């Protein structure tokens, strides 16, 4: 196992501090969240807990990054 930064380990052990949705809700809302983000609207207020979940779940975070990049590329 490679040495790693303590903050990083603690952050991943403790996860996000606030309330968060689960993976299923994240998937259900991800398309709306990304379109709100791209429209410059307050996606976090519209879908509370989704950003916290993205902070705590690397798999959902990857899928969010990809959907954002794909749709943003189409809109450009």
């Amino acid at each position: 196992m490679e040495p790693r930064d303590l903050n990083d380990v603690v952050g991943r052990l403790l996860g996000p501090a606030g309330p968060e949705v689960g993976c299923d809700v994240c998937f259900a809302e991800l398309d709306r969240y990304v379109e709100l983000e791209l429209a410059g609207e307050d996606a976090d207020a519209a879908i509370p807990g989704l950003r916290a979940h993205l902070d705590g779940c690397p798999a959902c975070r990857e899928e969010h990054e990809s959907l954002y990049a794909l749709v943003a590329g189409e809109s450009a």
Partner: protein
Amino acid sequence: MTGATLAGDVSTIPAKPALPLDLDEESRTWLRSLRDEGAVRDAAITRLHALLLRAARFEVTRRRATLPHLRGDDLDDLAQQAADDALVSVLRRLDDFRGASRFTTWVYKFALLEAAVKLRKRAWQGREIPLEDDAWNAFSDTTMEPVALAEQSELVETLRQGMETVLTAHQRRVLVALAIDGVPIDVLADQLDTSRGALYKTLHDARRKLRASLEASGLTPNAMSEESD
């Protein structure tokens, strides 16, 4: 596999006529075509498969660095499989689409999910998946820089104690595998014969308990973060 071939595979999935209100015109056209019959539906499915394949290839291209040993043909096969699986999922869940986003954005997430899961599983194929319930060893001084360890001995000790005393063995295994060893959640879900959602719930519960135990010890996460800076 082509969309036309898949149209036969999914013909038993019932098509329902009700359309969500306030749909944009493009999304309305997609839904009407996919809920039509015969050649119109077959053509729509072929177009949908092409859309999903484009999204799957987008994901494979983004993540190909995680699979340096795979050739281009292997990666494209993976994208094709992801598009095929996503097509089946989209057609099965067509009635779930409520128009909260454009139809194309909604379907993209299925292809990206299928491709991402396949990529993560392929990257871990043949690798040992650590499932240690002895979190003490996993969270040992080999996991972090020696200087940081010396400076943060109180924090590390408190975390170790919390992991040993407040978590169940299953919660420890899941927390260590996901948060320390970096096992992808889909890979671990397969290994433990559970779902990604259920596994994340276990992770979430473990994290909450660990936070509470730290706070009970007088170390709030914020204070710990400042100390660690």
